[in-house]
C-alpha cells in the first residue's frame, strides 16, 4: 500500500497542498482529478520524490519513506509517466526503454545490445506494441510514444505507476488501446494512479476517483456508482454544460474553397469548402491527414497541385504570412508550446504578434498605447488569468496559454479561423470558456471556423457539419447538424463507421 498522511506543501505565497490523506493499493486504478492548479502535479511530485513535503509523511507498505529524488523513488518501484512525451527521438525504441539502466546490460562498459533488445521487446509486448525494438522513435505516433513511456516505467519493475494525463494527446482509438493496457496493469497487480481531465475515461477504467480542489482533498468515490455530473460538481462546484448550443445562421457564400488539392504520395485531388459563419468540424485519427490538409491550404506546407479560393477569388498563399496579411486567415496550432507561443516572452508580445505591422505608425513605430489598450481588452475579453501583460507566458496555466494562442488571432481580426485541438491539456473551466468562445465567434461575429478535434463531444456539439478524414482522404461528410436531426450518439456512430 502507498499511503499519504496529512501532506502539506507551500510555495511562496501559495499553499499548494493542504492536509492530503490518500491511500493507493496494488491492483487498483485510482484516478486523481481536479482542475488545473488543484494540486495534482505537486502531489505527484511529492510521491515521486521530486519535491519534499512541508508536512505529513509518505508510507510504502507501512514504512515511512523519504525519497531523495526521482531516482530514489524509481528504486522503490514507483514510476511516473509524464504528460509531455519525453523520449529521445534519435534513439531506438529499446534504448529509450532502458536508457537510464544501460550500464546494467553488459560488462566493462560494453553494452549487450541483444539483451537490451530482448528486454525491450518483452516490455513492448506488455503494453501491446508490436514494434521492432531497434526502430528509431522519431517516426512513431504520439500514442506509441506514450505507450513506450509506460513500457519504460514497467521495465523498472514499478509496483506503482503514475500516469499524468496519458490520453491528452491521443485520438479516440489510441485512447482505447491505452485504457486496455491500464486494465492489464491492474490484472498484473500494479497500482495505477491515473490523472486525467476526461471524466468518461476515468469512469470507464478506474476503480476509485479522488478529487482535489485548490490544494484540498474533496473526496473519494467508487467509480462503479458515480455519475459524471457528481465528479464534475466535486471538481468545480458548478454544473457542466455541454448541451445543444442553439442554431447558427450559416451564409450561402463560400469563404474558403479548396479544389483538387494534391500532394504526390499523400493527397489526391481533395476538395473542401467553408461557408460564412459556419463551424466545420474535421474528424479523424492523428495522422489521417486532417491537420496536414489545412496546413496546405494556408501555405505552411506546400501543395503540388490544386487551387484555393477565398471569397470566390483565386488566392495566392505561399506562407502563413500571406494567409494572415492578404486573406485574414488564422491558424491556432495544436502544439501551442512548440508552434503556438513564444513561451519566454510576455503575454502582450504574444497577443499582438500578428498585428505589429497594423499597429505601426507612418514612421514604423508601434503605437504602444494602442497596443496596451488592445492587449488589456483581449485579456479581459478572454478572461486570461494573468497578473499583467508583462508576465511571461510560460508561467501561465495550460488553459490560459491556450486562450492567448487563440486570442492573438482574434486580435488580428481574422475572418477565417482554423482551430486545431483547442482544448488539449486544458482544465474544465477553460475548456468550457473556449467552447463558448468558438460558438460566439461563429454565431455573433459571423466568423467562419474550421475546428479540428479528437474530442468527440466537443466536435459534435460545436460543428454544424463534419468531414471525416481517413488515410489522407475525406471519407465522409455528416451534414445539417443545425436542426439536430441526428443525436449525439448517432453522429458518433456514423463517424466511427467512416473511420473503420
Amino acid at each position: 500500500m502507498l499511503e499519504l498522511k496529512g501532506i502539506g506543501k507551500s510555495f511562496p505565497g501559495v499553499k499548494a497542498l493542504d492536509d492530503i490523506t490518500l491511500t493507493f493499493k496494488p491492483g487498483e486504478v485510482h484516478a486523481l482529478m481536479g482542475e488545473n492548479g488543484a494540486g495534482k502535479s505537486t502531489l505527484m511530485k511529492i510521491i515521486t520524490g521530486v519535491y519534499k513535503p512541508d508536512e505529513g509523511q509518505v508510507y510504502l507498505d507501512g514504512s515511512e519513506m523519504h525519497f531523495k529524488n526521482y531516482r530514489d523513488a524509481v528504486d522503490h518501484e514507483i514510476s511516473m509517466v509524464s504528460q509531455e512525451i519525453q523520449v529521445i527521438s534519435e534513439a531506438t525504441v529499446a534504448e529509450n526503454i532502458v536508457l537510464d539502466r544501460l550500464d546494467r546490460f553488459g560488462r566493462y562498459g560494453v553494452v549487450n545490445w541483444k539483451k537490451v533488445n530482448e528486454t525491450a521487446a518483452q516490455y513492448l509486448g506488455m503494453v501491446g506494441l508490436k514494434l521492432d525494438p531497434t526502430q528509431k522513435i522519431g517516426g512513431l505516433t504520439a500514442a506509441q510514444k506514450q505507450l513506450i513511456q509506460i513500457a519504460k516505467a514497467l521495465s523498472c519493475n514499478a509496483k506503482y505507476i503514475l500516469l499524468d494525463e496519458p490520453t491528452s494527446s491521443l485520438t479516440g482509438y489510441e485512447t482505447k488501446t491505452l485504457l486496455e493496457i491500464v486494465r492489464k496493469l491492474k490484472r498484473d497487480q500494479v497500482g495505477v494512479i491515473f490523472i486525467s481531465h476526461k471524466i468518461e475515461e476515468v469512469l470507464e477504467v478506474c476503480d476509485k476517483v479522488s478529487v482535489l480542489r485548490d490544494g484540498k482533498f474533496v473526496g473519494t468515490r467508487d467509480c462503479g456508482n458515480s455519475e459524471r455530473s457528481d465528479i464534475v460538481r466535486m471538481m468545480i462546484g458548478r454544473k457542466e454544460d455541454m448541451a445543444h448550443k442553439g442554431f447558427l445562421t450559416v451564409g450561402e457564400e463560400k469563404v474558403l474553397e479548396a479544389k483538387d488539392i494534391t500532394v504526390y504520395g499523400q493527397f489526391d485531388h481533395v476538395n473542401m469548402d467553408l461557408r460564412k459563419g459556419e463551424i466545420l468540424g474535421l474528424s479523424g485519427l492523428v495522422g489521417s491527414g486532417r491537420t496536414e490538409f489545412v496546413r496546405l491550404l494556408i501555405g505552411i506546407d506546400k501543395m503540388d497541385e490544386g487551387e484555393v479560393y477565398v471569397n470566390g477569388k483565386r488566392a495566392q498563399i505561399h506562407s502563413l504570412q500571406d494567409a494572415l496579411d492578404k486573406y485574414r486567415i488564422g491558424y491556432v496550432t495544436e502544439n501551442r508550446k512548440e508552434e503556438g507561443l513564444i513561451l519566454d516572452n510576455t503575454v502582450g508580445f504574444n497577443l499582438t504578434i500578428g498585428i505589429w505591422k497594423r499597429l505601426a505608425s507612418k514612421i514604423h513605430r508601434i503605437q504602444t498605447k494602442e497596443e496596451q489598450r488592445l492587449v488589456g481588452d483581449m485579456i479581459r475579453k478572454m478572461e486570461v488569468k494573468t497578473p499583467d501583460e508583462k508576465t511571461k507566458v510560460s508561467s501561465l496555466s495550460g488553459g490560459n496559454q491556450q486562450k492567448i494562442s487563440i486570442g492573438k488571432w482574434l486580435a488580428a481580426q481574422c475572418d477565417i479561423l482554423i482551430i486545431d485541438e483547442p482544448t488539449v491539456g486544458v482544465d474544465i473551466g477553460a475548456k468550457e470558456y473556449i467552447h463558448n468562445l468558438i460558438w460566439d465567434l461563429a454565431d455573433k461575429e459571423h466568423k467562419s471556423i474550421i475546428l479540428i478535434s479528437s474530442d468527440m463531444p466537443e466536435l459534435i456539439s460545436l460543428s454544424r457539419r463534419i468531414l471525416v478524414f481517413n488515410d489522407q482522404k475525406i471519407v465522409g461528410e455528416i451534414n445539417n447538424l443545425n436542426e439536430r436531426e441526428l443525436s449525439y450518439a448517432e453522429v458518433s456512430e456514423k463517424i466511427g463507421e467512416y473511420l473503420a
Partner: protein
Amino acid sequence: MKEKSVQETGAKKSGKWKAVFARSEVTVLLAVVVLSICFAAMSDGFFTAYNLFNISRTASIYVFIALAQGIVCVVGGMNVSLGSMGGLIVVFIGYAMQNLGVGIFPAILIGLGTGVAAGFLNGMIITKLKLNAFVVTLATSFIFAGLVSGISRGYSYTEIADNFDFVGRSGLFGIPMLLIIALITIAFLIYMFRYTTLGRRLLATGGNQEAARMSGINSERMIVTANIMSGLFTAIAALLWVSKAGSAQPSTGSDWMIISFAVTAIGGTALAGGVFNGLGMLFAAFLLVMVKNGLVAINANVYYEETYLGLILLFAVSLESIKAIINAHNRKNRLKKQQLEK
C-alpha cells in the same frame, strides 16, 4: 483591508527600486563602478582624461563587435566568422585606398558593402540550405581568412587618407566620437527592438522560430536580416578600428570572436535567442575593457595577467547569481516570519 492597501503601496515603491536592481545590466553597471573605484585607488594613471578617453574608445569598438554577435544571437543563431569578416573588410578598405586610390567615402561604402554582402551570404546559406549557423559561419570564416591572407599576404596598408582618423581620434566636448556613435546605435537598437515590427519579429524568431513562423512571420527573412545586420556592425567596427589605428592591418579581428561572445553574454543577451539587452552590452564592453586596462594600470604581473582577468570577470558575472541567492534567502526568511506570526 485599509492597512493592507497601505502596505501594498509601500511595497510598490520599494518594488520599483527592486525592479531596477533586478535588471541584469544594473549588476554589470555596478561591477563597472566598483572596479573603477578599486583601480582608481590603486593607480594614479587610471582616472585620467586620456585613459578614460581610451577606455571609452576601445569599449565603443567592442560594442560594435558585440552587436554583430548579439544581433544574430537574438534570432537564435551565431556568427563565428565575424573576426575574419572584420579582417576581410579591413583589407578591402586598405586595398581600395592604397592600391586603387579611392577617397574616404567610397572606401567607407566598400567597407559597409563588404560587411553586408558577407552577412547576406551567411544568412542565405543558413536559411536556404537549412544548415546550422555555427557550421556555416565556421566554414565562411575560413573562406574570409583565406581571402585576407591571399589578398594582403599579411602586409599592412599604410596609405590611408589623412582625414580618415577624424572619427577614431577626435572627440566632442571631451567625449570620443566613437562613444557617441556607439551610444546612438544602441539607443536606436533599443528603440528598434521595443517599438518596431522588425525588432519584434527578430525577437519572436529567436524566441521560438516555429511559433514565429506559425504566427505569420517570415522567420527565414528575419535570420537573413539579422546576419546582414551582423555584417554591417562588423563593418562599422572594422571602419572604426582603421580610423583609430590610422592604418589597415590584415591581422585585425583575430580576437573579435571571443570578445563578441564575452560581451554579449555578460551583457545579458541570451545566446539562445529571443532577448536583446543593449545597455547590458554597453556596460559589459566597458567592464571587459576596464578590467584589461586596470590590470595594466596597476602593473599586475604580466605572466599571471590572464588569470586575474578571468577571476575578475568571473566575480563580475557571478554578482547576478549572488544577488539571486541573497534574494531567495531573504524571501525564505520573510515567509518564515509570516508563518510564525500566524
